[in-house]
Each structure stands twice: as structure tokens, then as C-alpha cells.
């Protein structure tokens, strides 16, 4: 086990290294940073362009710039935002909390919705409930996140106000002039959380349903039944435990995406998290911030992939480390 973990870790490091090289090339070499920087000022002289290039180190070849960037990054200096001049690390830290508040809540709501629904759907296979849930999950699975978000805004923010019902806020974390209370935060969170949870639970429900059905068809379930165990006991001790295995992987891989946040959801609801930061950085072609978010979120995905593999091997003794 220990050797397996070490070996996987050693594989992860060059992987991240190569990813950072490719991302660096994609961000810096494909585009023309200078033309973006001077886009608002077409009368920039040749000398100014040379000066700007020198200022941002753009006069050196890309591979040299990569090594400078990589060296600094390893020492914890991720550069500064081209727009605000703030350190990238502190910009990211400021946004991470907001993203986590949103995503962790959405994640818990997703599980609370999906686990009972998926389970009942599988236990009552081909019942009316099962058909209804299957149809619904297909629908939500095909619904673009932004469309669902706007439908919710239309209903709960616009129409509710028209009808004189208590309307929900359509964006931001707090009212602009209101106090920053927990109640405020809760009210602003309902719609974005609902958006993410509805779409994600469609996927989870499908997953859990098929996984439970597969386990129910296994011989050891029949054995458990035939030796006289009660239905609830079989369900809890034999079905649930085994059916939860693939869900563990799904959940952990989803956790990895927490960091990059829900780009789309945060854009719709103007939620000041990582996703919105990323979109702003892309719009301003703020290279250091873009690189920071891309590399950090890739690193997180690699780490959680690793955790998922190890945990899976630990939970399921049939899997051998190799």
C-alpha cells in the first residue's frame, strides 16, 4: 500500500509538470499578449511596445519565461495580476472561501436529494416513480446550467415579485446596501445552490440507480436473502455498502472541481468566487491569474484522482494495488 501511494505520487509530479508546460504555452505562446495589453491605445509607439515587452519579460523566448515562472511558482510566488497588481496567491485565497461556501452546500444538497431518490428508484424498478425520476433526470441532465439558472431567476426573482410573493435575490452574496448577515447569505445562496444541485443530482441519481440494480443482481445478495436476513438488513449491510463504491469515486472527482468552481453558475448569479474570477481574468487576458487558476485546479484534480484510487482500493479488497 505504502509503495503504491509513493509510486502514484511520483507519477503525479511529472504529470503536473507537463501540464504546466502545455498550459504555459497555450496561454503565452498562442496569443499575443502585447497586442492585448495595448488594445485600448492604438497609438503606442515602437519604443513603448519594446518597453512593455521588457517590463513583463516578454522579450525573452517562451521556454526561458516558463522556467522563470516555474521557479517562482515553486517558491510560492505566482506573480501579480496585470489588472490590479495584487499577488495571484492572495487573489485566489480571497475567492476560494466564497466558492467553497457555495459548492460545499450545493454538494451536500445534491447528496441529500440523489441518495434517497436513486435508492427508491432502484428498489421500485419500473414503477411509476422510477419512470418519473428517470424522465426527470434525463431532462435535467440535458438542461444547460445557465438555462436552468435563468428559469429559476425568472420564476423566483421576477415572477414572485410580480405576484407579490417573497422574491429571492438573483445575484451576488449580499444585498448591495444590506448588512452582511448569515440570513442574507442564506437567501442569496438558495438559487445558485438549487441550480447546481438539481443538475448534479440528475447524474448522481442515474449513477446510484444503476449501481444499486447491479449489486441487487449479485449472487451474494441472494445468499444473504436465502439465509433469512431481513430485507432492511440486506439493504443496509450488503446492498448499500457495495453500491456506494462507484459513488465514492464520483464524489471525490467532483470535489476536485470545487476549486475551479462552477464557472457558469457563478457567472449567472454574480457569485464572487473562483469561477467568476476566472472569467474576469480571461476577459482581461490577465495571464498570471489565468495560469494560477488553471494549474492549481489541475493539481487538485490530480490529487483527488489519486485519493479516489487509493480509497477505492482500500474500500474494495478485490482490487489489488499494482
Amino acid at each position, binding site marked *: 500500500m505504502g509503495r503504491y501511494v509513493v509510486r502514484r505520487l511520483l507519477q503525479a509530479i511529472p*504529470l*503536473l509538470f*507537463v*501540464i504546466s508546460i*502545455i*498550459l504555459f504555452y*497555450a*496561454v503565452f505562446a*498562442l*496569443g499575443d499578449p502585447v497586442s492585448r495589453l495595448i488594445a485600448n491605445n492604438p497609438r503606442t509607439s515602437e519604443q513603448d511596445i519594446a518597453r512593455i515587452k521588457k517590463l513583463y519579460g516578454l522579450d525573452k523566448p517562451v521556454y526561458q519565461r516558463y522556467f522563470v515562472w516555474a521557479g517562482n511558482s515553486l517558491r510560492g510566488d505566482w506573480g501579480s495580476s496585470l489588472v490590479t497588481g495584487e499577488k495571484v496567491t492572495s487573489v485566489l485565497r480571497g475567492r476560494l472561501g466564497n466558492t467553497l461556501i457555495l459548492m460545499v452546500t450545493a454538494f451536500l444538497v445534491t447528496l441529500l436529494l440523489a441518495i434517497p431518490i436513486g435508492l427508491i428508484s432502484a428498489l421500485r424498478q419500473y414503477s411509476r416513480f422510477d419512470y418519473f425520476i428517470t424522465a426527470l433526470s*434525463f*431532462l435535467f*441532465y*440535458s*438542461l*444547460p*446550467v*445557465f*438555462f436552468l439558472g*435563468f*428559469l429559476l*431567476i*425568472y420564476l423566483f*426573482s*421576477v415572477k414572485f415579485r410580480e405576484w407579490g410573493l417573497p422574491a429571492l435575490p*438573483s*445575484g451576488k452574496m449580499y444585498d448591495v446596501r444590506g448588512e452582511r448577515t448569515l440570513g442574507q447569505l442564506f437567501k442569496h445562496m438558495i438559487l445558485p445552490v438549487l441550480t447546481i444541485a438539481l443538475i448534479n443530482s440528475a447524474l448522481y441519481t*442515474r449513477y446510484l440507480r*444503476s449501481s444499486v*440494480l*447491479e449489486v441487487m443482481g449479485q449472487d451474494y445478495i441472494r445468499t444473504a436473502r436465502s439465509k433469512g436476513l431481513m430485507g432492511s438488513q440486506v439493504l443496509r449491510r450488503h446492498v448499500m455498502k457495495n453500491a456506494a463504491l462507484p459513488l465514492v469515486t464520483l464524489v471525490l472527482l467532483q470535489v476536485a*472541481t470545487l476549486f*475551479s468552481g462552477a*464557472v*457558469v453558475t457563478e*457567472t*449567472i448569479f454574480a457569485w464572487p468566487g473562483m469561477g467568476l474570477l*476566472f*472569467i474576469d481574468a*480571461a*476577459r482581461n*487576458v490577465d495571464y498570471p491569474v*489565468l495560469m494560477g*487558476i*488553471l494549474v492549481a*485546479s*489541475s493539481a487538485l*484534480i*490530480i490529487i483527488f*484522482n489519486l485519493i479516489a484510487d487509493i480509497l477505492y482500493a482500500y474500500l474494495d479488497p478485490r482490487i489489488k494495488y499494482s
Partner: protein
Amino acid sequence: MSDTPATAKTTTDPGTDVRDQLRAQDAMSRDVQTPWKIIRRRFLKHKLAVVSLAFFILLVATIFIWSSLLPANAAQVNVDLYNTNAPPSLRHPMGTDQAGSDVLQRIVLGGRVSLTIGLFSVAIAIILGTIVGALAGYYGGAVDNLLMSFVDMMLSVPLLLLIVTLAAVLGPSVRTIIIVIGITSWMGVARIIRANFLSLKNKEFVEAARSIGVKNSKIIFKHILPNTTAPLIVAATLGLAEAVLLEAYVSFLGYGVQPPQPSWGNMVSSGSFLLTIQEAPWMMLFPGIMITLTVLVVNFIGDGLRDALDPFSRL
């Protein structure tokens, strides 16, 4: 010697004999179950998938024929300056936008853009994925390790962030979006093809081909690849749904198709300001419904195809 069978035949009426033979042949060919016949029968049993396929064909045909009849300048379709932000009516079945353009006509034009991007990017993804998967599965060893590490690497970068970054640095356009979606969504195909090649490359027919000296490239493309058609078709169909959705996301975020050229994604986006949602909700409702419907029916078709093509599939 040659006339013996002829003399034997003259004992019976030659006409009935031939007819009998033909009838027997006909009966046989009717009973013979070619794989494609079995697949077609199984697919036709999947009612929802059949209805979806009919709807999808109708949709694609309508969009491509109608859009070719509309003026080339997408920005100025049927502009009705006296009716800006007009709700759906007989004259404008889906209403008009703030510039007075007919939303229905923009949906038709946007649909052509969205579907074209979807189809072309899936084609790129399928070609890339097939090449990588075939090489990795067939040659194994170091080639396999290298290519599959590359797949792992691609899967470790958040997809939407990568697409937006590439579109942002390359400058968003229809061609950029097709390429970017294509080169970021081939990994699933590569894995499927590789798995198929791994199980097929040691089969007897491959062995036979190799033993008579058929070249590797010919074995890959002529002997093994046709046997992976089924999973490829399913992957392409589900990939199309994914690509249409991705285009919508990227255009929605502002890095896809640029207005005034319409696409379903940027139409939802331009109808999504709070004031617009209040005053002209049809601007985002109809393109949103179109995306959802298209993705939904393509997913149903893919599901039906998977059930029809793979007897062991469960989901």
C-alpha cells in the same frame, strides 16, 4: 457431359423449378439475421429513441433548409423596427429582440451555427480519439504508456476552463470553437477504441492477417477498426449532445460565437440581463428550450443506439 443436368431437368417443368428456387432463396434471405438487421429491429423497439431520431432529422432538415433561404447577413433578419421587444404573436411566433429581429429566424440561423459546430467538433474528436486509441491499443508497450499518459493529462485539466482559455487566447470565432471543442473532447473515444483494440488484436482473424504479411496500417484500419463501429457510433451520438452543450456554454460565457452572428448559446446570453428577463423573457426562453430539446433527443438516440448495439449494456 454438360447436357446431363439439362436432360435431368426436362423431366419436370423448368419454370416451376426456378420459381421454387427463387422462393426458397427469398425465404432464406428473409430469415437470415444480419447484424445490422438485428440492430435495426432492436433500435426500432426503443420507441423513445425512434421518435427522437425522427424529431432530430426533422429539426436538422428544417434548420438547414430554412436558414439557406434567409438573408446571408445574419444581423438583419426581418428587422421590425416598430416592434422591438415584442411578445410572441402571429407575425413573430417567438417574439422579437431589442433590435426588432425576429427571434424565430434568429433561432433558425443560430441553430445552423450550433449544429454545425457540434457536428464538426465531434468529427474532429472522433478522428483524433480513434487514431490515438488505435495506436495505443494496437502497439501497446511504450506507445500505449505515452499516449495514455497524454490522455490522463488532458483529463486532469478542467475542460471548460481549458476551452475558454484557448478560445480567449486564439480569439473567438466559429472555426476556433470547432477546433477547441474537438481537441478537448477526444479522450473518451480514445479510451473506448483502445479497449476494443486490446481485446481484438489477439483474435484469430488478426493473427491470420498478420501471418500472410498484411501491413500494420492495413490491419488497424481494414481489419480491426470496422469491428469497433458500434461503440464509435454510440460515442459519436452522445458526443454530439455534449458538443452542442459545450458550444452553448462557451458562447454563453462570451468566448464562442460572437454576436451579431447568432448561436443558441449567445442568444440565451443576450436575453439574460435581469431587465431583459423581466421584459422579454422569450428572448432567452426559446433558444434555451431549443438547446435542451436538441441535447435531450440526441441523448435519447444515443441511449437507444447503445441498447441496440451492445447487448450487455446495462445503463
